[in-house]
């Protein structure tokens, strides 16, 4: 099956500055795909290259098989929901929604009809003749969505569309966006720096940093099996320990921990030597059958959890999270505790 969007060896340079280094991505039809990363990682640049607002320095961008990398934005059957919506302030809501159809040469009656249905879909039929300035942020956001979906694009691009909304509305819109994507069956490419947003909505996520795609996978993949320090650190909370890898066989590594303990864990690399080990703080229990021993320094009460800040034997700082359940006794500062790693708690990273 042809991918909805296929990016091959895409490079973007501004003068001597390289914003994207040889990016390869394949985004399937009907997929909710997220580009996730901190600001400046190149995610917006990549989105704008797909939309046609930035030239592609090298490489190809294929839309259902056709290379569109050199097409003008108005010749690409993709539409964008802009970060601050970019609703035309001198046009009514309905004229905004109908604009794309008008440009495509659709006759007035048809486009009024279609724009009306799009507004119905986003529950804004009553606002058709208002000016965008008279709408709330959330309503403007829906108009932007309706406007981008009205011409029935093959792919919808969303550039941090929720970032301007308040928390409550943002959470409600996540559900709605996901629903909309499933109902329309259109491929969504969503750009965000908010990992929670990415994890809750996406079928797959590409984690980006410094102009490179670090890892592509489902939410579970990137959380449970990060390939490198950046991904492990950026997604959720983690403890990064420098360890000596003694042997790797069949994707399982034997590593020596600081303090003399040894353990086996899944590995993202086949090399031995010094590497980083990621241990999720919530995948540990206090136990006599210890993989690690540590001294408790401070216990922070977080409601559902207790955060325990400790120091491993050997001096490395270490954090764990314990569920705040009745049967768990909170350790006291100063206590020496044994830590047991659950299945899959530790993962050896490639760097």
């Amino acid at each position, binding site marked *: 099956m042809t991918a909805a969007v296929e990016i091959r060896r895409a490079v973007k340079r501004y003068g001597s500055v390289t914003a994207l280094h040889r990016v390869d991505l394949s985004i399937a039809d009907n997929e909710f795909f997220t580009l996730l990363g901190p600001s400046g990682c190149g995610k917006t640049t990549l989105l704008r290259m797909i*939309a*046609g*607002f930035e030239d592609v320095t090298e490489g190809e961008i294929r839309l259902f098989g056709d290379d569109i990398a050199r097409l*003008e*934005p*108005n*010749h690409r059957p*993709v*539409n*964008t929901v*802009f*970060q*601050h919506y*970019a*609703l*035309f*302030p*001198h046009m009514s809501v309905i004229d905004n929604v109908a*604009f*794309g159809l008008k*440009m*495509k040469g659709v006759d007035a009656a048809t486009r009024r009809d279609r724009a009306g249905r799009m507004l119905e879909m986003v529950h804004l039929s009553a606002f058709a003749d208002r000016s*965008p*300035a008279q709408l709330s942020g959330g309503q*403007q956001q829906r108009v932007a969505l309706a*406007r*981008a979906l009205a*011409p029935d694009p093959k792919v919808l691009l969303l550039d941090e569309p929720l970032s301007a909304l308040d928390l409550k509305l943002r959470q409600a819109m996540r559900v709605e966006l996901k629903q909309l994507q499933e109902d329309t069956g259109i491929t969504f490419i969503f750009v965000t720096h908010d990992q929670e947003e990415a994890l809750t909505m996406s079928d797959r996520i590409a984690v980006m940093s410094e102009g490179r795609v670090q890892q592509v996978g489902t939410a579970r993949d990137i959380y449970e099996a990060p390939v490198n320090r950046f991904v492990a650190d950026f997604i959720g909370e983690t403890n990064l320990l420098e360890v000596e890898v003694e042997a790797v066989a069949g994707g399982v590594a034997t590593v020596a921990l600081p303090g003399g303990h040894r353990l086996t864990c899944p590995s993202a690399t086949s090399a031995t030597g010094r590497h980083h080990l990621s241990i999720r703080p919530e995948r540990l229990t206090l136990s006599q059958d210890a993989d690690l021993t540590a001294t408790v320094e401070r216990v922070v009460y977080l409601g559902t959890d207790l955060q325990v800040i400790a120091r491993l034997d050997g001096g490395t700082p270490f954090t764990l999270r314990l569920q705040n359940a009745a049967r768990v006794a909170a350790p006291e500062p100063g206590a020496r505790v044994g830590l047991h790693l659950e299945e899959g708690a530790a993962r050896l990273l490639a760097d």
Partner: protein
Amino acid sequence: MKGVRHYPGFLAMTLACLLVLYAPLAVVAVYSFNGSTSITQWGGFSLRWYGDVFTGPEAGRFGQAAWNSLTIALIASTTAAAIATAAALAMIRGGAFHGRQASFALINLPLMVPEIVIAVSTLIFFSTVGLTTGYLTILLAHITFCIPFAYLPIAARLEGIEGTYEQAARDLYATRAQAFRLILLPLMMPGVVSGWLLAFIISLDDFIITNFVKGAGMETLPTAIFGSVKQGIKPNIMAISTLMLGVSVLFVTAAYLVNRKGQKIP
């Protein structure tokens, strides 16, 4: 406790400021309705000097001067607004390019050079290239010094318009020309209109440069008024002044309203 914004005496200063600015204009406006032929004696309310402006012995001279002033202002402001709009597009939408700083300095040059120096240099130029001073030379000079006045509000407006509007239009299948005509131009229109209005007033207002490049026999309203007041202030001058005052107030009010209406870009 009056708060940190309050300073005693500042209201009085403001009122003094307004008094200084308005008193002469108010006095002339009042005296323009004087029924007496003497400018000193009050002879009761009358519109006779307004009648004199249109039918009196000097009506032909001032009528011709007013016609010259209006047509020059109209052509000069329209041309300057068109040139300034083009320049603003290049400056604000043209990215970083070689010569941008120099272009900015060039646009603002007429604001930097003292008016009397512009007058002298323009006269020398026309005389050297052999252009006879008259209507055309006034017009050319006016177009030049009107450009920065038209440019300022247009560029300010354009700077306030995010590039995403044009991108959104392009994303929605508009060609470059359509994105300009349907999105950018309507959005920058308030700036273009106020730029045009300002240029119009500036052109109408000019005396010094016009006086240098007008040539013999050619008059605009300010030069005609100047010539007349050199012989002493006559009541018909006060009537003309009050009329021009009215026109200026009308234009500034229009510019103010257009700008306020156009301010809303979400």
